[in-house]
C-alpha cells in the first residue's frame, strides 16, 4: 500500500465519521435556529443579500446533508481508485475537498482544527494523485502535509509554553474541570498533587514541541514522533471527546513516514523543479 492510498484511507475514515455526525444533527437546528443559513452566512463577506427560495434550497438542511454524504462517498471512491492505482484517483478527492470547503463556508462557525487539518490533507493528497508515475507530485504533496503537521504541533506547544496558566499547571487543571472536555477522576488527582498538575501541563507542551521537531528531524525520529502523537490523540479523543483529531492528524502520518528521509526527498523535489 503506497503513501497516497494510505493517506486517502485514513482521511476518508475521518471524513465519513464527520459527515455522519453532521447528518445526525437535528433538522430543526437548520430552520430558525443556530445553523440557519441566514445566521451562519452573516459572518461571511460574500453572502446572499436577501433570502430567496433558491438560497433556501442550496443552503437548506437537505442540501447540507446531501453535501455531507457526497463528501464521504467521494472520499471512499477515492480510496478504491487509489488502491487500484487508477490515474484519476485524485478527482473524487477534488469533489470531497469542494464539499468540505462548501461546509466551511456554509457553517462559518463550529468548525475546528481537525476540519482545518483535513483541508491540508485533502489538498496534499490531490497533489499526490496528480502524477503517480514520477513521484514528483507525491513528494510535493507529502512534504506539504508533513510541514503543516510539524507547524501545528510546534505552534500548539510553543503557544502553551509562553502562556503562564499552562506553565503553572492551571491550564490543564482548568480544562479538566470543565464538563465539555474534563474528567472528574483526573481532576481529583490533580487537586491532590499540585506537582502532577505542573508536570502534566508542562509535559503536554514539551511533547507537542518535541513531536514537531522530531517530524522535521526525519529518519527514525519521525517514526518515534508519530508513535507519540498517535498515543496523544487517542488519549485526547477518549478524555476530551476530540475524536476527529485522531483521523485529521492521523492522515498526515503516512506522509511523515515517507518524508522521514528529508535529505533524499528534498533533493528529489529540487530535481523535479529543475526539470
Amino acid at each position, binding site marked *: 500500500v503506497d503513501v497516497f492510498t494510505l493517506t486517502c484511507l485514513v482521511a476518508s475514515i475521518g471524513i465519513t*465519521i464527520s459527515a455522519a*455526525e*453532521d447528518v*445526525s*444533527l437535528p433538522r*430543526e*437546528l437548520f430552520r*430558525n*435556529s*443556530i*445553523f440557519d443559513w441566514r*445566521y451562519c452566512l452573516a459572518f461571511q*463577506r*460574500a453572502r446572499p443579500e436577501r433570502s430567496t427560495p433558491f438560497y433556501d434550497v442550496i443552503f437548506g438542511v437537505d442540501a447540507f446533508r446531501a453535501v455531507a454524504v457526497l463528501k464521504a462517498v467521494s472520499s471512499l471512491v477515492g480510496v478504491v481508485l487509489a488502491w487500484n492505482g487508477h490515474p484519476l484517483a485524485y478527482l473524487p478527492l477534488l469533489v470531497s475537498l469542494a464539499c468540505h*470547503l462548501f461546509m*466551511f*463556508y456554509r*457553517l462559518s*462557525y*463550529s*468548525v*475546528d*482544527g481537525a476540519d*482545518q487539518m483535513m*483541508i*491540508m490533507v485533502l489538498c*496534499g493528497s490531490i497533489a499526490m494523485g*496528480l502524477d503517480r508515475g514520477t513521484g*514528483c507530485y507525491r513528494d*510535493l504533496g507529502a512534504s*506539504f502535509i508533513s510541514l*503543516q503537521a510539524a*507547524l*501545528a*504541533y510546534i*505552534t*500548539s506547544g510553543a*503557544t*502553551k509554553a509562553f*502562556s503562564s*496558566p*499552562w506553565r503553572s499547571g492551571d*491550564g490543564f487543571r*482548568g*480544562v479538566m*474541570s*470543565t*464538563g*465539555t*472536555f474534563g*474528567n*472528574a477522576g483526573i*481532576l481529583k488527582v490533580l487537586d491532590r498533587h499540585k506537582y502532577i498538575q505542573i508536570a502534566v501541563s508542562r509535559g503536554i507542551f514539551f511533547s507537542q514541541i518535541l513531536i514537531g521537531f522530531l517530524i522535521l528531524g526525519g529518519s527514525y525520529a519521525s517514526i518515534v514522533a508519530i508513535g507519540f502523537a498517535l498515543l496523544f490523540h487517542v488519549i485526547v*479523543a*477518549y478524555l476530551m471527546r476530540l*475524536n*476527529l483529531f485522531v483521523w485529521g492528524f492521523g492522515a498526515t502520518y503516512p506522509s511523515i513516514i515517507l518524508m522521514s528521509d528529508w535529505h533524499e526527498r528534498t533533493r528529489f*523535489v529540487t530535481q*523535479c*523543479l529543475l526539470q
Partner: protein
Amino acid sequence: MFLMVAAFFAGWLVLSAINQFKADALIWLHRYDSLGLLPNWKFFAPSPLKFDLVLLYHTSQDGGNGESIYGDWAVAAVAYDRNVYDFFFNTSRRLNKAITDLYSFIIDLSRTFPIESVCRSAPVKALSALVVQRAGIVPDPVVVSGIAVGRSFQFAIVRVEGVRASTTAVFAFVSEPAPLGK
C-alpha cells in the same frame, strides 16, 4: 505546471506560519478567507478553556400598569452534553462548538459596541433562536400594529466554572428584552 503547484503550496505554508505567530499582519487576508484556508493551530492556548456555557431564558407577563414581571430563569441548553461513544462518534460536537464560538463573538462585540447593537448582531440572533426553539417558547399571538404586546423574552449566557469541582456561575451576557411576537 509542477513549479506553479510547488509555489502555491510554498506560499500557503508561509502564510500558515505567519498566521500562527503574527496573525495581526494577515487581518486583511482573514476578511477574504471564507473557506478556512488559513489554519489556527493554537489549540487551547494561550488561554485554556476553563468554563462551560449554559443558556438560560425567562419570559415576562403583563403585571398591569404597563409593567412586565419576569419569571425565574430556566435552562434552555447546556453546551456540555456527553455520551459514552463520543470518543468515536461525537454527535454534539458541532452544536457545542457553535455555542462556544458564538459566545466568543458576542463577548468580543460587547467590548466595542453598546448592548443595543450587540443584541441586533447575528451571533445574538442565532443563540436567541436556539433558546426559543429549545425552550419551546410559543410566540405571543397578540400583535397590534405589527408589534407584539404582552409577553417579552430575555436570554442569558452563563459561564459555569468547575462543573466537575466546586461550581461557580457568572452571567456573561444578558440580552435586551425582546417581544415574543409572531
